C-alpha cells in the first residue's frame, strides 16, 4: 500500500504493508537509523519520534496511520536550532552514556520544552518517564533539560 507523509518536512511516499510499524518503515525501508528499537512494544521510548507534534513510540504506530501526517525524527531535529540546543545540553551535562536511549530522549526533551519552556524538576521527570535509560540514572538528563531551557531562552 502506498503511504504519503511528511518526514522531517519533506514529502515522502512508501509502498509497504499498511500494518508495518512506523519504526520499521523508518529504519528498514528508509534507512533512517537514528531512531532506535529497544523493546518493540512501546515500553522503553528509544524509538520516540514526533507525529503531528506529539511524542509517540514509532514501534507502536502502524504506518497506515501516518498517512498525510508529519513525522519528525532526530535526522530532522538535529538540523534545527532547537534540536542542536537539546543535543548540546545533553553533551554538556554528560547525559549521554551508551547513547542508545539518547535519540528518543532528545525528542522527548524537545517536546517538553516546546510545551513548557521553563519546566520544573517534576515536569522534566514526568516528560521523560516514558523514555527508559539504564546508564545515567536520569539525573544528568534532567540537568540537560534545565541547561537547554536556560541556554535556549527565547528559543522555546
Amino acid at each position, binding site marked *: 500500500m502506498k503511504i504519503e507523509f511528511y518526514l522531517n518536512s519533506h514529502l515522502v511516499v512508501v509502498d509497504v504493508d499498511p500494518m508495518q510499524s512506523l519504526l520499521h518503515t523508518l529504519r528498514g525501508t528508509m534507512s533512517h537509523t537514528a531512531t*532506535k528499537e529497544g523493546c518493540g*512494544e512501546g515500553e522503553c521510548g528509544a524509538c520516540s519520534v514526533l507525529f503531528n507534534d506529539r511524542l509517540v513510540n514509532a514501534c507502536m504506530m502502524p504506518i497506515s496511520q501516518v498517512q498525510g501526517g508529519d513525522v519528525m525524527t532526530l535526522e530532522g531535529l538535529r538540523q534545527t536550532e532547537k534540536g542542536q540546543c537539546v543535543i548540546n545540553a545533553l*553533551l554538556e551535562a554528560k547525559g549521554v*552514556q551508551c547513547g542508545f536511549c*539518547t535519540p528518543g530522549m532528545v525528542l522527548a526533551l524537545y517536546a517538553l520544552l516546546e510545551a513548557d519552556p521553563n519546566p520544573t524538576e517534576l515536569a522534566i521527570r514526568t516528560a521523560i518517564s516514558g523514555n*527508559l535509560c539504564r546508564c545515567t*540514572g536520569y*539525573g544528568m538528563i*534532567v540537568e540537560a533539560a534545565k541547561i537547554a531551557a536556560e541556554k535556549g531562552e527565547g528559543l522555546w
Partner: protein
Amino acid sequence: MDTVNTHFKWEEATGAAKYIADRHYEGLLEGRFYRSSCPRGRIKSVTLPTLPDGYHIFGADDVPGQNVLPIVEIDWPAFADQEVRFVGQVIYLVVGPDPDVVDELLNEIDVEYAPLEPAYTIEQSKALKDGAIHADDNVLDTHMLHKGDIEAGFAQAATIIEETCSTGYQEHIYLETQGAVCYPQDGKVVLEGSMQCPWYVHHTMAVVLGHDNVRAIQCPTGGGFGGKEDFPDVLAAPLAVAVEKLQQPIRLIFERGEDIATTSKRHPVTFHYKTGVDADGKIVAMDIKFDVNAGAYLSLSGIVLQRSITTATNVYDIPNVRVEGHAWATNTVPTGAFRGFGSPQNCFCMETHIHHVAKQLGADPVAFKQRHFLTAESHSLTGAEIFGDLVLDEMLHKVLDMSDYHRKFNEYTRQDGSQPERRKGIGLAIFQHGCGFAGDLEDTLVRAKVKLLKGSDGNVQILASNTDIGQGLSLTFRKIVADTLDKPLEEIQLAVPDTGIVPDSGPTVASRSILIVGYILEKAAKKLKKSWVEGEDQEITEVYCKPDYHQWDQNTYQGNAYQATSYGANVVEVEVDMATGEADITGAWAVYDIGRAIDSTIFRGQIEGGLVQALGYGSCEKLEITQDGVFAQRSMADYVIPTALDVPAIGSDLVDNPYPYGPNGAKGGGELTHNGGAAAFVAAVENAIGVPLSSIPATPEKVCEALARRSDEPSAQQREGQVKGSGPGNGAPIDED
C-alpha cells in the same frame, strides 16, 4: 585506522553513531536460533525441513573446530548436541535472505527429547532427581576460606544470631539488545557487534573454527553491565561456523523478548549467617555459608563465587571467620556477569544481616557498624595488610551529614502504629569493591598490553582492547594520556577496539579498565613524553606488572584478593504506603572513595546510573523462574526498571584518597556504585514499617506480606527475618526501637 569519539558522544547524541542494527551490509542474510523447548533431556531424534534454495541450517555437526564456548571451562557447547540443559539453549542456527521464511523453517524443525527431571532452584539442584546435571553432585564450583579460629571465636560468644538473607535474579536491560554481524573479509571471518570484550569473541571464533584467521570488532554498544561480557560468544560461535561455510554476511539480532528469555542474569544467592557476639557487643565469630544458582553451565560462576567469598565480611574486621560457597548447576540459563559480579549480592546480605544483628542487640545500627570497621591495623578476610589509607569514617560522616541521617532516623523511628497511612524511613549501607580481576587472573588470564602510536604530526593514537559501553572510557583513556603528555585532548585519539588492530589489554570487566589498563596507558604516556621526538613516528608498548605489595595464593586464598579496593556509603530515604506496600524513594545520597576520579562528571554518571540500577535491584526488579523453566517476566512491560519518576535527584561526593598504582591516583569505581543501594533501600523500608526484611527485591507484595504477618502474629517478626538468637539477645524483637 578507524578512531572513535574525538568529540565525546557527539555521534550518539546526533543519531549518527552506527550500532550493529544500524549498519548496512551487501548480501546480508538473516540468522535465527532454533532453541531447546525442553529444560533437561537427551536429544532422541531430529526432523529437519527441506530447505529452499539459499537457506541453511547449522548445528553441532558443522563445527570444524571444538563445539564449545571457551569461557572458563570447556562445558558449554556452541550448539547443543546430545543433550539439552535449559529452555532456550541453542541447537541450530537457521540462515537465509528472507526473515519470514527463516521463521517458517524454524517452525518446521522438530526435535524429540527424552526428558529428565529438571532442577531450577538450588534446593532442586541439591535433590539430584534423575541424577546430577553436572558431575555427580551438581556442584559446579566450591570454595572455603578461614580466618582466625572459628571454634575459639564462637567459644567467646555470649550471643549467637543466625539469619538467612537472599537475593533474586537481575536482568541487565541494556537498552540495545544483543546483536552481531559476521562476514568474510580478506580470508578472515570477521564479526562486528555489541560487546564488551572483543578478544573473548576472537578467541571463541578461533576455537570453534580451529584456526586464528578471525577478527572481532566492537560497534558502538548500547550498554553492557556485564551482560555483554561472555554472552556475545553465544552469538559469535554459530555465526562464525556459518559464515566460514557460506562466505556471506549473516546478521543475528535478538528481539527484546528473546534477549530477556535467553541471556545471562545476575546469580540468585542465599546466604546463611551464624554470628557470635561477645558480652561487650562485639562480633567475635562468623560462619557464612552461601549458595549461588549458576544455571546450566559454569560460565563465569566460579569467579563470581570467588568474589563473594573473598569479600564476604564486607568492610568489617571480624577476627574469626569461616566462609563456604557453592555454585550449583540448574536447568536455567547460565547466570553470569552483572555489574558487581557477586558483590551486590554479598553486600546486600551482609549489610542487612549486620543491621539486624545490631537491632537484635539493641544497638544503634550505624554505631554498631562503625565499631566493626576495618582499620589500618586490620587484615583483610584473606589475610592481607590494608594497603593505603582507609577513609571509612570520613565517608560515613559525610554521607550522614549530607542526608541529615541521624535527625531523620530518630524522627522516623518514633513513628508508631497510630501514625498515618504513609510512613517515612531512612537506611544506610557501607560497602567495598575489589578492583580488577579477583585473585591471580591478571597474571594467568591475560597480560594486559597497550600501545601508543605517535604520528609525525604529533597526534597520538591509543590502542587498547577495552570498550566504551557507556561508562565513558573513550574520554577517560584519552584524558589519562593527554594529561600525562600535557597535550590537548583533540590530539589524542582512541582506536576502535578491533582485534585486527589492538593488542589484548584484557576484557572490559571487573572495574579493571582504569585501574589496570589506565595505569599502563599512563606509564606508556610517561615513556613517550620522555622519548618524544618532534616530527617522527613513534610507538610505545606497555605491559602490566602488578605492584610488589600484591601477593596472592590461589590455592590457599591468602593474600591480596584484589589489586586495590574502593569503598562507598549510601543513604536512602523512602516513604511507604502502608496500605499498598509501595515505597517511594524520596532521597538518595552517596559518598565514594575511588582514589581520585579522572573525570568527576563522568564518574558522577557512574554513581547515579549504578545507584539507580541497585535501587531497582532492591525494590522492583523481579525476575522469577516458572515451573516450566522459563522466566515469568518476558518483556520490558513485565520486568520493570526504574523510570525518571521512580528515583530522586542523587546527592553525591567523593573522598580524595589517591592510589599510587592507578592513573593519576584513580581506582576502579563503576561496579562499586551498584553494591550499596539495595541494602540502604531495604534498611529504609524497615525503618518505615518496623518489620525486618531479609530478601530482595523488596516489592510492595513482600512489604505487605511482612506487615500482614506482623499484625496477625506479632511474635512472628523474628521468623520473618529468619533471625534466631540465643543468649542475652534471645527473643528481643528486632524492631526499629
